[in-house]
Structure formats: structure tokens, C-alpha cells
């Protein structure tokens, strides 16, 4: 009979990208129970609709999280445009999709580095983050910012991207794809990686559906909930989109799904660049939001399906802005996956969920 001890995991933990606290009841290196606690980074951002009018609120929305920054500004702008019946020009929609897919690449590369570091593979961590620097350079070339881009506004984009910058972006993406595929092959075929991740934290297809999981976390258990298939917003312009699914439902499956999604995102971004036509990138949106106007929007962020809801009250300020982020949906799945795992696997399981607690708490 082993002795039970409670190991506090987080909120300050070098391996976690975000502050989440877990009390792990451990018996002989096996986790018997995991009780999550969040709330360390609640900033009350949804209440800021009272002080920032709907045009200015984009700047608040994109600061919900540093990793999913562009996704939030895009989702917010699309929601308001839907509510006010605004037709965004085609060029702006394509550039938005391109930047969002590049944002997805950046998020997955960050995640891949942290996962490699979590089980002691420091050299892979460094190499992947070096590749990520190329992506951040692309952002700086096109929008001027590396993390918070501030290029979305209600009605389109703040500024256009010139053709020679776009051709530079295209060549950078092509070289990134080659380098990345070599690293991906090494990582996925490494025996020590497989020994640590295969069969760990398994969640079956039915469990995934019952727990309402979203994103690559669920797609590894063969649940197709990729919002990009629904053709919302700029994503209806994609020629052919097939979501990446895996059947194993363990940590290795989730790693594989995200690794393949990087390549898919590079292809989508290249497709958008090559099919761009000239035109304007914004329309003027003025005036207050009609009283009682409401809209719901869905967006596939790197971590999963994100839900936006807005309600107007006749003024320039929104009555309510709701952003339900994918990590909030995945919390129940995370607690289920941690049940009965080894202490050494706790890092791994939490990281394969890709928690973005800043988004969860806003």
C-alpha cells in the first residue's frame, strides 16, 4: 500500500506555457486524482466593452492571448461585420486567411518545442523555435508586429501588403516547409519519443464526443469538428480542405495531428498568396450598432473551435461580447486524461492538450 502525497503542479512551472494549478494526488508515482484550479490570469476583458467602443475593442480582443492573438482579432471583426452586414473585400478575406494560417504554424511550432523540452529533448526545442523565428519575421515584414499584429479592423485590414513583400513571404514559407519536414521526420520516428507518448493519456472516440472536446486534441480521437470544413468567412475560398484526423487518441496521435497541420497550413497560406487579386482591403464602417442586433461566429483557432457572440444596444459600445475559447472546452477532457496516469506523464498529457489559459480566463 503506497503513501498518498499531494504534489502541487503550477501555476508557476517552467514546463507550462500558461499558469494553471493542478493538485495531483499521487500514490507511488501514479496520479490518483487531479483537481484543476484556474483563475490566476482573469483580467475581466469581457467587461471592457463598456469603456472601448466596438472599433477600439479589436485592440483588447487581440491581447487576450499572445499565441492566438490574430485569431481573436479575426473572430471579433468577423462577428461585428456579420452583425452590421458588412461585405469585406475579397483581397482582405484572403490575406486574413493567409495570416491566420501562418499564426497557426507559429502556434504549433511553439507547442512542438515545449513538448520536446518537456521530455528532455532540448535540442529539438531549440531547433523548432529557431524555425519559428522565421515565421515571426514574416509577421514583422507584413504587419510590423511579431506577436500582436494589429492589422485587423472592423471592415477589413488596416493596411495592404505589397506584392514584393508577398513574394518574399512565399519564398520564406517554401524554405520553411523543407526544413520543417526534416525535423518532423526525426521527431516522429525517434524511439524514445514513441516510448514516452504511445499509449499515454488515451481518450476514445466516444469519450471525446461526450466530453465535448475540440481541436487537435479531439481530432486525434477521430472526432471531426474542424470549423474550417464549414466554410465560414474567408475559409469558403479554399479549394480543397480535408481535416487531419488520427485514430489512436493517445499523446503520439495528438503530436502527429499537429505536426501534419503545420504542413497543411503552409500549403493553405501559399494557395492564398498565389490566388490573390488586386483590390481594396477595407470598407468604412461607421455608426452605432443597431439596438438588439446579435451575431454568433465560429472560428477554428490552433487549439480548436472558438465561439464568438456579440449583442448591440444602439450605441457605439457593445452590450455584450462573448469569446468562448477552445481551451475552456478542453478542461474536462484534460481532467479525464490525467486520471490514472504516471507522474512522469503529467507534463506530457497537459502539453498535448495545448492549454491556453489566458484565453480560457480572459
Amino acid at each position: 500500500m503506497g503513501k498518498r502525497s499531494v504534489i502541487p503542479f503550477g501555476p508557476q512551472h517552467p514546463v507550462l506555457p500558461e499558469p494553471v494549478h493542478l493538485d495531483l494526488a499521487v500514490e507511488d508515482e501514479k496520479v490518483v486524482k487531479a483537481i484543476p484550479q484556474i483563475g490566476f490570469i482573469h483580467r475581466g476583458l469581457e467587461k471592457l466593452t463598456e469603456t472601448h467602443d466596438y472599433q477600439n475593442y479589436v485592440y483588447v480582443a487581440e491581447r487576450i492571448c499572445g499565441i492566438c492573438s490574430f485569431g481573436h482579432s479575426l473572430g471579433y471583426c468577423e462577428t461585428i461585420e456579420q452583425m452590421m452586414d458588412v461585405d469585406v473585400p475579397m483581397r482582405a478575406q484572403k490575406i486574413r486567411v493567409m495570416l491566420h494560417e501562418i499564426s497557426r504554424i507559429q502556434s504549433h511550432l511553439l507547442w512542438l518545442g515545449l513538448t520536446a523540452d518537456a521530455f528532455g529533448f532540448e535540442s529539438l526545442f531549440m531547433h523548432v523555435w529557431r524555425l519559428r523565428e522565421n515565421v515571426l519575421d514574416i509577421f514583422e515584414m507584413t504587419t510590423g508586429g511579431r506577436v500582436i499584429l494589429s492589422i485587423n479592423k472592423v471592415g477589413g485590414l488596416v493596411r495592404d501588403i505589397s506584392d514584393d513583400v508577398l513574394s518574399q513571404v512565399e519564398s520564406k514559407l517554401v524554405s520553411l516547409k523543407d526544413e520543417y519536414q526534416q525535423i518532423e521526420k526525426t521527431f516522429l520516428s525517434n524511439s524514445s519519443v514513441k516510448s514516452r507518448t504511445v499509449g499515454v493519456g488515451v481518450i476514445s472516440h466516444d469519450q471525446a464526443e461526450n466530453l465535448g472536446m475540440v481541436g487537435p486534441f479531439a481530432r486525434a480521437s477521430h472526432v471531426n469538428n474542424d470549423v474550417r470544413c464549414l466554410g465560414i468567412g474567408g475559409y469558403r475560398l479554399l479549394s480543397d480542405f480535408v481535416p487531419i484526423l488520427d485514430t489512436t487518441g493517445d499523446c503520439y496521435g495528438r503530436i502527429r495531428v499537429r505536426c501534419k497541420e503545420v504542413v497543411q497550413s503552409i500549403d493553405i497560406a501559399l494557395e492564398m498568396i498565389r490566388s490573390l487579386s488586386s483590390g481594396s482591403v477595407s470598407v468604412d464602417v461607421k455608426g452605432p450598432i443597431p439596438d438588439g442586433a446579435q451575431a454568433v461566429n465560429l472560428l477554428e483557432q490552433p487549439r480548436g473551435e472558438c465561439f464568438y457572440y456579440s449583442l448591440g444596444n444602439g450605441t457605439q459600445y457593445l452590450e455584450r461580447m462573448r469569446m468562448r475559447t477552445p481551451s475552456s472546452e478542453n478542461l474536462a477532457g484534460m481532467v479525464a486524461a490525467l486520471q490514472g496516469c504516471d507522474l512522469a506523464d503529467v507534463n506530457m498529457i497537459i502539453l498535448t492538450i495545448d492549454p491556453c489559459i489566458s484565453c480560457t480566463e480572459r
Partner: protein
Amino acid sequence: MTVKQNYHSIDVSQILTTAQKEKDEGRRCIQICCTTTDDGIDVMYSYRDFNGFSGVENFVVHGLSKGDEIPSIQEFFPSQFPFENEAHDLFGINVTNMKLDFEGNFYKLGEDAPMTVISTEQLKRKERAKKIAAAMKAKQQKQNAQQSPVAKKETSSPTQQSPGTNNKSSSEKKGE
């Protein structure tokens, strides 16, 4: 393409039955959202299907106030625990029978139910907006009203001269 969405109003007693029905039809609850409105707190449950997409179904319970009780749908959808705890912490709505209940400690807040507090600037803005909207509506109605009597006069006596010419003729007569 805009997202297909439907809004239905329901009662507190229908929350559980709606959740059961949506689950049986293969949809899942994707979020629970509370809004503070002039008539009280609204709670919105959004459902979406697993396979394919027929739209987001939103069921709204209107007119709750701080301290009211609503039943938890965590038995059908365990992933909703963050939102039900959030409803309690930020809006003061008591959610009963929660499977994972943080008892008010989900977010460590400085004051109770901060999202129910409406600042004075916001109230003033809304009042002003309502006045402007009411004034514009009244102006619109007045314009509509003015246009219709003029049309009636023109149709009934087309030979009637304008008052100006009548005056002129009388003054001319006087002057002679």
C-alpha cells in the same frame, strides 16, 4: 458565408429538457453565456451538431436576477463546468447540482458578481442613444404625417388658388 443561427426563448424549467433533447438529437452544448440587460440577466445556451452543420441553436432564458437558481447541465455535458462556475462568480447566478463545483472560487475576484455592475457612463450612453433613437423615430413619423395631409389637399380641390395670389388680388383691389 454568415453562420446560420437561431434564437429561441425558453423558461428556467425547460433548461434540462432542452439539454436532453439536444443531446438525443446528436448536438452538443458549446457554451453558456450570461448577459446583463435592462430587464435582468439573460442566460444563453448554444448547441451545435457533431457531424455536419445545420446552424447554431441558441436558447435564451430571460429576466433572471442575482441569486436566482438554475439547474446544471453538467450531467449531459461535463465540459460546461467552467461556464457554469463563471456564471456563478461573475453574475451571481446560483447553479444547482453541479458535478464539478468550485463554490465561488473559480475566479478569485475582488467583488461579487462584477458583470452585473453597470457603470454610470454606460447607463448615460444608453439613455442618450435611446433618446436619439426615439427622437429619430418621432421625426420619421412626423415626416410621414406631414406628407399625407398635403397629398389629401391637392387631390380634393385642384382649382383653389394659393393664399398669396388671393392676398395680392385683394390688395390690388384696395389700392385702386
